[in-house]
């Protein structure tokens, strides 16, 4: 059980459906399924709107948010933004980890996502996100498929190799937010 903590928003009824895939209290245990706990509020809100509008085509979420009003999406965003993030995995492959750490610095990921990669406003927390999800998402962006999100990530990943994406994902997934 996640610990109770002060200031937490009460759980919106709709969050039960979210937790089925994104994990109890928003920390995902499923492959390719992102953790949403402790993500910035605006980031979650934006993504929920884009998914509702069909701008982000996520097969598992088709129809889930149909006709859900903005106010409920905002409530969900506030709720998950306030939840604590689970401890990251400790199984570091040191070469991958170090390479990923260097790349993330050189690519200036920290300018937007902040130097500790906790994210802010519309930019997601990368620290402690699932490795498989980070890799999946960056591959989509690189392939011009991340429709509906700011195209700046397409530009940021311009010309990067898949090996480098794997290293960055390995590293980011293993740093504590």
């Amino acid at each position, binding site marked *: 059980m996640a610990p109770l903590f002060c200031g937490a928003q009460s759980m919106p009824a709709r969050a039960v459906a979210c937790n089925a895939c994104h994990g109890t209290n928003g920390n995902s245990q499923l492959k390719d399924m992102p953790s949403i706990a402790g993500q910035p509020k605006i980031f979650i809100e934006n993504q929920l709107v884009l998914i509702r509008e069909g701008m982000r085509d996520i097969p598992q979420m088709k129809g889930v948010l149909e006709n859900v009003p903005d106010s409920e999406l905002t409530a969900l965003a506030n709720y998950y933004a306030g939840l604590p993030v689970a401890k990251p995995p400790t199984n570091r492959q040191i070469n991958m980890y170090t390479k990923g750490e260097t790349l993330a610095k050189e690519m200036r990921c920290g300018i*937007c996502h902040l130097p500790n990669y906790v994210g802010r*406003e*519309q930019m997601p927390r990368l620290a402690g996100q699932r490795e498989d999800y980070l890799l999946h998402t960056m591959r989509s962006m690189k392939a*011009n498929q991340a429709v509906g999100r700011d*195209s700046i990530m397409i530009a940021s990943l311009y010309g990067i*190799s898949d090996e480098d994406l794997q290293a960055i994902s390995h590293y980011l997934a293993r740093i504590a937010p």
Partner: protein
Amino acid sequence: MVKNFTQSFKKLSLLVSLSLSALAVNAQAPAAPPPAWKQGMPDSLANSTLAPLAGKLTATKAADVPLNKIKLPPGFKVEVWADSVPGSRAIAQGDNGKYYVGSRPLGRVYEITDNGTTRTSRVVIDKLDQPTVAFRDGSLYVMAVDKVLRFDNIDKNPTVAPIDLTEKFNLPPEKHHNWKYIAFGPDGKLYIPFGAPCNICEPPSAEYAQIRRYNADGSGMEVLARGIRNSVGFDWHPVTKELWFSNHGRDWLGDDTPNDTMNRLKVGGHYGFPSCHQGNLADPDVKRLKPCDGIEQPVALMGPHAATMGVKFYTGNMFPPEYRNVLFNARKGSWNRTKKIGHDVVMVRADADGKNAKVEPFMTGFYSDADQTFWGRPAYLHQMNDGSMLVSDEQMGVIYRVTYSK
């Protein structure tokens, strides 16, 4: 073209990794060229935390807009003309009090119907990749990054199925900086800019960083000018009929350089991207010998990183005579600068040949200089039949109407 592009990047990446492995065994090997993502990101900015501003995708009601913060010259008034149109950008006027507005992040095209005192709106089409709008002879033209649609006689037939013109326009594949402002010129042609798909780079092919015009059906494409990094606003001078266009300068070159610019279109002209900015500033990343030789000079510098957007020459009778033929320009506001600039509508007063340009404030109050917070981002302008001016606010997702009375 895509294939060649991908291949050249694969080669580049391969070259980089080969060179890196070579470095590992032989420290004397020449340095590898930087990978594409590294262009225009100098080491001096390693610790910067300047980032694009967060947009708001949920609906805002008129009552929640802090209208009293907006400042205008004496005699001008502002009202919220339409609300709950999240992400609203360019506005095109249709028939019988109908207006069309594209929403870039939400992928929607709104139709707003004005009955004089109130407005209603509906979504004409959604799920498009950054759609924008133009209107001519009863037809609504919708252009997304990868699609062109025409809705014929949409006023009489609101549910008309669109005609897909995509193939005829032969759009290039890259998304970044390829949201478009489009408009029909006095020659009846559709003018379309194609931005550079990067902050700063040698574009992957010749299809980018240019302004073109097409016949309305997509035939007869002509490239009018090149070297234009990202133009997202233009209008035709009321007297000379020349096209004047706004252009965004590159990021990560310091707080005060380069400027965004206002320009006159010279057919066949080159505006400098990627190696020369604002007509006189050599780029430190993409170097060429004498990069600014023969480059067209801007009419006015619009402020570094100010995000110069919608352009409209005022030709109405409602504003006082000194506003006639003045260029209005919405500046969405900076992110790549430690102190904010823009977040306003300014006026550019210049001679018809572009000389003696002066930039003056018109509509301000969307940000606080004291604490560097902002609440609004003026994006596009449209002159109504009665001479009032519509201003879209992409942040609030509302459209203001600016009027004048003595």
